[in-house]
């Protein structure tokens, strides 16, 4: 037995121009912009963190190995 309100749901989606996260009208959701910017920021910051962390690891290893190879 179908219990989902397909008809009213479809009408609501059509009226909103689509469905997007949290149900706001598609393409007009300011929260989606904020989430996208957050995602971009996390991407950039994590790449910077990988770079900084690796730099420290390699510097440490190079110092440790300097005597062996020099």
């Amino acid at each position, binding site marked *: 037995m179908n219990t989902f309100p397909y008809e009213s749901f479809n009408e609501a989606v059509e009226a909103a121009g689509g469905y997007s996260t949290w149900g706001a009208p598609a393409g007009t959701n300011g929260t989606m912009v904020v989430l996208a910017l957050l995602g971009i920021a996390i991407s950039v910051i994590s790449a910077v963190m990988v770079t900084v962390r690796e730099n420290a690891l390699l*510097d440490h290893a190079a110092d440790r190995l300097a005597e062996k190879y020099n």
Partner: protein
Amino acid sequence: MDIAAVATDGILTEAYYYFTVAIMWLLHVGFMTYEAGVSRRKNIMSTAMKNIMTIAVVTPTFYYVGFWVYFCMQEGLKFTGTADGNGNAGEAAYVCGEGYVVPWDASMSPNIGDNLTGVFWAAFVLFSWTTGSIMSGSVLERIRISAYLWLTALMGGIVWVIAAAWGWSYGGWLVIHFGYHDFAASGVVHGIAGIFALGVLFNLGPRIGRYDANGGTRAFKPHNLHLTLMGLMIIFTGFYAFYAACLYIQADTTGGYVNIYFVPATLSAITFTITMAFAGGFAGGYIFAKGDPFWTLSGGLAGVVAVSAGADIYSPSLTFVLAFFSAGLAYAAGNWIEQKARIDDAVGAVSVHGVMGFWGVLLLGIFAGGFPASGVVDVKTSFLGQLVGAAALIALAFFTGYIASWILKKLNLLRVPPEVELEGLDMAEFETDFFPEFGRADEPIVHADGSEEPAAGVLQGAYRDNR
């Protein structure tokens, strides 16, 4: 067609792309396996980590920037608000200016009114990872993981996408004005990745000990060539999905399969092509490389790359012949790059993907000139059009790769310290030995005259000479 049939049609298209994406993951399983096998024991995990993290950086770059670039840079090095690729047809095909595929648009959300954008996006993402993974092999055993990630985000998330916007879309300027045809991305994926890698290699330099003072080339032995060959076979399996994803199928609008330029094509044709190309490439690789296992399998890859541009229209016999001789050309080019140009490309990717990619672009102009290049505008393929396309894409790839790696080099963020390279990247990057139950055997090195000796003394000498 009634509404129900249209809806079913869209769902089938959605499922078709979904499964090509799933199978294309095998490309990346294969790339990781292949490159880990090529690496020396001391660099295995750092090599594999590059392949894994490719997914972590290229995917968001493509989601947030790349997909939009594809739709908005069809007309060249400029963002056009109205790029529509309509040419003479007068119909808006692309909707850059309307927000389509901007990350916060409904098209990039769980939208029950849109079955297709997500799966198209994912197919493009898998192509994006592929470009990154192609470069990954070239630079292994001395590049910093972080440097590689910046470079692969640039190339996989943006540079190849610009190339695709220009030459792998029915609205691209290379297609509309020059009839550029590159069905399965000889140029826009393989060529771009290989030439971008070449630009990076100029700044990265060879591995310590790769070349001797007399101009000879030394060889490092892969720690597990079987693993490398298995990786290539897995890549080849994924290639079938890569090819399938280069087709578009939506019966209500196209009447069947079409290529990305909306010219009719069939899944059957590309199955002929790819299978015969592998056969021809393996045969050519074996013959020209005198039975060398690595180049026999790489010959198969080179053969497929060389015919990919015309895989929708070549006859199977033509494909076999072109792949056979292209494998030989890839072997010769790889040796020239390694031994004469003294560019240390650890897996021959510049030859197999870069040279073969653009060789394949030109082959199409020779063997398939005069074919309708677009289903939207009246333009035909030609050698000149392919030449213009190759020149534009080579310039795009080389200069972006060279400039980006030059900046990293100036910041001292491109290459690991030489002491770390000698010791092995894994101990420095992860501070653990991933094979604790096995002792380290002496690493061998092969001299230009074919003789072998333990590498430690040779590498130490090379390190001191270059300091």
